């Protein structure tokens, strides 16, 4: 038998089998959909949280504050020291005048106070953008210490710890999501196996007839396995649909209530990768369920 026509026959039979048991299939698709939806919520949450750490990283620069007594040579030496290190992607000198200007823009209510004070109370600074690898590098604290020890430097500001913690939270959520996903996927597989088993029971007469006229075993069992796979696939699509709906619901709620905190946490939908992960999870659960259901014990030879 040619594989293409055999595959077609299998799919054909799977779909007509599903159609004939559509009510039960609907129930199992709903359950699988809700399971995958829950996993999706986790993934979405983790995705957005790690999005925040990305944003923070983009904005996170080391700020080096110079003493008022620092000389321009000291400042240039520091810039050179930073540039020569393996941690920095960009170096920006920000003069005390520039810092004052920024302060006034951000805190307009204090503008008069800030402008009236002379001499300029803001120090000269240098902002260093870190390379992506540097942020997680173990030797970063050493680099910060060396920066602080440079002549003319008053203080070095860089709080890497809270980013690390946030990343830890993201990892935790991802791990929990994966764990939950595994459990829910197994649950979904068992649900699918039960539905498939039930359809097998309903089709006992048909299976007997197929056997009597010499149907190959893969054509007898295949459609039931295929039915499981299709259920898993439909469940995953349903979950993605629900997820998109609730995502847009939250976005709209945020827009209406101007709930900034929520707005920070929910900004983007699942990208292609995790979405495909959900769909293939559904398909795999369906395949597993289908295979569990057609073991010899359940489909008599």
């Amino acid at each position, binding site marked *: *038998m*040619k594989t293409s*026509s*055999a595959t077609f*026959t299998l799919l054909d039979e799977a779909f007509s089998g599903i159609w*004939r048991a559509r009510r039960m299939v609907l129930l199992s698709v709903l359950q699988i959909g809700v399971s995958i939806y829950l996993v999706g919520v986790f993934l979405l949450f983790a995705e957005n949280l790690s999005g925040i750490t990305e944003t923070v990283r983009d904005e996170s620069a080391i700020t080096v504050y110079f003493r008022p007594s620092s000389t321009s040579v000291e400042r240039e030496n520091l810039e050179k020291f930073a540039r020569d290190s393996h941690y920095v992607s960009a170096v920006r000198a920000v003069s005390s005048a520039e810092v004052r200007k920024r302060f006034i823009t951000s805190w307009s209510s204090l503008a008069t106070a800030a402008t009236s004070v002379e001499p300029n109370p803001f120090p000269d600074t240098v902002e260093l953008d870190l390379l992506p690898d540097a942020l997680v590098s173990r030797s970063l604290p050493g680099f910060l210490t060396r920066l602080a020890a440079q002549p003319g430097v008053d203080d070095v500001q860089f709080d890497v710890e809270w980013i690390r913690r946030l990343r830890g939270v993201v990892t935790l959520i991802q791990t929990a999501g994966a764990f939950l996903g595994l459990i829910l996927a197994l649950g979904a597989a068992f649900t699918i196996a039960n539905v498939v088993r039930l359809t097998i029971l309903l089709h006992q*007469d*048909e299976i*007997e*007839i197929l*056997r*009597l*006229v*010499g*149907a*190959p*075993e893969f*054509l007898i069992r295949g459609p039931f396995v295929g039915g499981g796979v299709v259920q898993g696939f439909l469940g995953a699509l349903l979950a993605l649909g629900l997820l998109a709906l609730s995502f847009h619901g939250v976005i709209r709620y945020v827009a209406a209530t101007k709930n900034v905190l929520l707005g920070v946490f929910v900004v983007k939908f699942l990208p292609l990768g995790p979405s495909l992960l959900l769909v293939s999870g559904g398909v795999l659960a369906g395949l597993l369920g289908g295979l569990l259901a057609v073991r010899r014990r359940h489909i008599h*030879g």
Partner: protein
Amino acid sequence: MIEFSRVTKEYRGRRVLRDVTFLIRRGEFVFLTGPSGAGKSTLLKLIYHAEQPTSGRIVVNGTEVASLSPGKTAELRRSMGIVFQDYKLLPDRTVAENVSFVLKFLGMPAAERKKRTYQALRLVELHHRQTALPEELSGGEQQRVALARALVNEPELLIADEPTGNLDARLATEMMKLFSAINIRGTTVLVATHDQALIKETGKRTLTLDRGMVLGEGEKVSLPPQALGKRDPAETLGHEPRWRDRTEPGG
């Protein structure tokens, strides 16, 4: 084609067939008759391995049936056409689907399946009911769908259990003509039937079962299997079976 040597079949200790021995050669047309409960259906089930003999040897198409794996059994059944006494149609598929699905196993393209299905349904005069479901058909119509399904794959061996039980006299005769035509084209045919008139009409070799034993064909049945085996090589496809015009047993 089909060889039974001292075959006994018991259902939970109740003997249904005892010491049944016979040989059907390739290209033969044989009737199997006997009263209700004599074991006709049981004998046919043994041939297509839906039942296992309690003792004895059954060889179909050169292989011993009892030792066939499920896969080989399916293969054997695909080479046959079987008309079941209770039809065994798939209830939620149309007439055309019921006939054409056996062609799917052979990997036949859809267009070819459709053509063959139409032809088979024409032979049984049901080509105008292709889209009907079995429950929408009369008993005789369902029987003819079962017939069409058994014929559609042009089997080497056709086994029919009471294929005319629900047909009127005209259709019964038509179907027997159809069987004869198929037989002439080379298919071995074995038909179980009560209908003595039909057997007379066609005048073919007949095996008669009574209380589990094969009556008639007296001397042939008592021959030891080895003797039957020795006679086999002399037979070639298309030869007139030797005992075709022997006395009609059970008649």
